[in-house]
């Protein structure tokens, strides 16, 4: 399929962007950072095109559903969501070094998708349970939420590296030297962490609500403590704790960064672990 080829080029563009972002930190050359950004935008454009094309291919096959129905499609959409939130945040903060810690998530996702066997990649018609518009709303909102948490996690890892160095060299006034000089300041990283979660959390809330609405429409129960539902709630609790922790002293900075990283770990488990390890209603992990 043609869309598969575009997904290949997307992966390549994301990989180049990642390499350039990492080189940017090492070389401190602004042009390299800009190159990373251009590659990221091209990759995002290709990713968008590929998803659109796959939708079109599904229409040509006579199914016509949005490409959000199995593991393969969800992984490439996850990469797309990560880029969406990352590029939006980049427009505001213009901190290219962050790309070196965010792009790997997208590259890993795309590479994994490319390695899946052909039968997982093929476009399948929807089984009765998935034949609903709620599917589209539910998946889009959940994944934009996950993407926000991915970026928050990347920023938090940078924060922990940076803040350790800053404290050793005696406060933020004397910026850390070496490679770390290309990192945004700890304050900015903390802010990116918070802002990304501010986008992610309401989207996750909406994802849970649309999921509940759909479950109620399809099965007559909006909440059944299915492992996937429960894990989404666990993630929701963790980030709710994070948001409230901002208001008390002693829970900002390091603790907040750790909470954000743990939150993203829980998010990944909610997305993949539940399907691979536990049993429940969301069975796309098998395909």
């Amino acid at each position: 399929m043609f869309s598969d080829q575009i997904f290949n080029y997307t992966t390549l563009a994301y990989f180049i962007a990642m390499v350039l972002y990492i080189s940017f930190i090492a070389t401190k050359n602004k042009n390299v950072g800009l190159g990373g950004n251009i590659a990221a935008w091209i990759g995002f454009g290709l990713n968008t095109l590929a998803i659109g094309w796959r939708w079109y291919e599904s229409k040509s096959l006579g199914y016509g559903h949005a490409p959000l129905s199995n593991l393969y499609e969800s992984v490439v959409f996850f990469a797309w969501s990560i880029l969406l939130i990352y590029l939006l945040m980049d427009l505001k903060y213009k901190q290219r070094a962050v790309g070196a810690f965010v792009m790997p998530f997208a590259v890993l996702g795309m590479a994994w998708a490319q390695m899946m066997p052909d039968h997982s990649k093929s476009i399948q018609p929807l089984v009765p349970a998935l034949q609903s518009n709620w599917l589209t709303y539910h998946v889009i909102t959940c994944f934009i939420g996950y993407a926000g948490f991915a970026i928050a996690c990347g920023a938090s890892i940078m924060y922990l590296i940076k803040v350790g160095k800053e404290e050793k060299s005696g406060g933020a006034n004397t910026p850390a030297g070496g490679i770390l000089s290309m990192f945004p300041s700890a304050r900015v990283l903390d802010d990116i962490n918070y802002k990304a979660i501010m986008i992610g959390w309401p989207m996750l809330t909406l994802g849970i609500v649309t999921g509940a609405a759909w479950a109620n429409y399809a099965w007559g129960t909006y909440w059944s403590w299915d492992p996937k539902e429960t894990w989404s709630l666990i993630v929701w609790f963790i980030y709710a704790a994070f948001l409230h922790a901002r208001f008390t002293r002693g829970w900002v900075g390091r603790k907040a960064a750790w909470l954000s990283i743990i939150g993203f770990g829980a998010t990944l488990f909610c997305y993949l672990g539940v399907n691979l390890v536990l049993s429940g209603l969301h069975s796309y992990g098998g395909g």
Partner: protein
Amino acid sequence: MTTNKRSFLDALWDFCCSLKLTIFTLILLAATSVIGTVIQQGRSPEEYLRVYGENTYRIFEKLGFFDMYHSWWFLGLLTLFAVNLTACSIKRLPRVWKTVRNPVLTPDDGLYRTLSNMEEMVSKESPETLKGKIAEFLKTNFAAARVTEADGKTHFYAEKMAWARFGVYVTHASILIVFVGAIIGNVFGYKAYVNIVEGTETSRVWKRGGSQPTPIDLGFTVRCDKFSVTYYEGTMRPKLYKSLITVIDDGVEVKKDREVIVNDPLKYKGIVFYQSSYGPAGDPSFVLSVTERATGQSQTYNLRQGQPGRLANGLPFRVANFSENFQNFGPAVRIEIMPPGEPVRAFTVLKNFPQFDAQRGDDFIFSLDDYQQRQYTGLQVAKDPGVWVVWIGCILMMVGSIIAFFMSHRRIWVTLVPLDGGKTGIKLGGAAHRNQAAFEMAFDDFKKNLKQELNS
């Protein structure tokens, strides 16, 4: 004694209001919720005993791990969460209400000093001429101002989106509303299921939960006229599960031949029926053709599963087994020929490949012409009068959190102080309760424009 009591109540109240409790509860809820995803919920004791062994089973049973989300301690945690939420809101809401209803209209130097966005300038014009100008400027560049005169000074106060301060309380209230909806659903509603064989009707469904399903009388009758499964062409991937349902109330067919499919339930009198499962009802019956190889003569049999037939040579046979989709080849029967005193000869006959059995090389060639299998449709039945309350809660939660995160109450104060020589000292300050960085930029623009306006 009384002071002791008082301080205890105070301490309890402070405990309920504390943000530390919020974080603690949220993390504890997250951590404990994991248990119920690792231990499968609501299984039979036998199953648990097999998996965990006697001792662990006893401990888990005591701790309520097998129905964790309804255990006393988990519901207790949720209650603590709700109490904390309510207490925090009760404590903080009056202060916020005051800020919004009775804003400081006459700022003093102390207030100006606390504002991170502050500016002072001097104009040659008199306070009298400036008054109109400033009011007009605030109106076009920010918001209409409330003007107060005190001690010879003129104060302007303008604000935007004061209601944004309530976003967080809307979100908090919405969670309580969702809880209320869930409780209403649990108390006044039920979850049940019913299996209806094609062509039959029922007015009773079976309530889930508890050790034994208990019957519930619907007060009307539901009939399943037909159930069918269709597959995507050329595959065994199901496309549609469909029940044709008729609802009969008081002898009248109020809904006739309504299609109930997955993702499109049937609703009648607040009770909703969802397509959920299906299965065979009773033994299937078959139409088989048996051709004698030597003569080419064919005979047709109508047999139920297990019912013996007799071949032209007198040997008995029967359909021992049936599969609607045998190894993806479609419907198939397992035939057993039972010669007396000899071992049984068994083989498979596929409906979609009638020529296939000839290759077996037997004297008789079997083919499956048709079969009939009555199905039952499995419906989930739910009554939940609280569901609307839950949706209202969810909508408020979304609206509330968007307001809380992305809307900001912005305030600008301007004070005119008459100076010697007809000049005027102008003091201005501003504050935003969210997104300070964006407000800082907006305030800088505001400042610049005001200077230009005054100099022109």
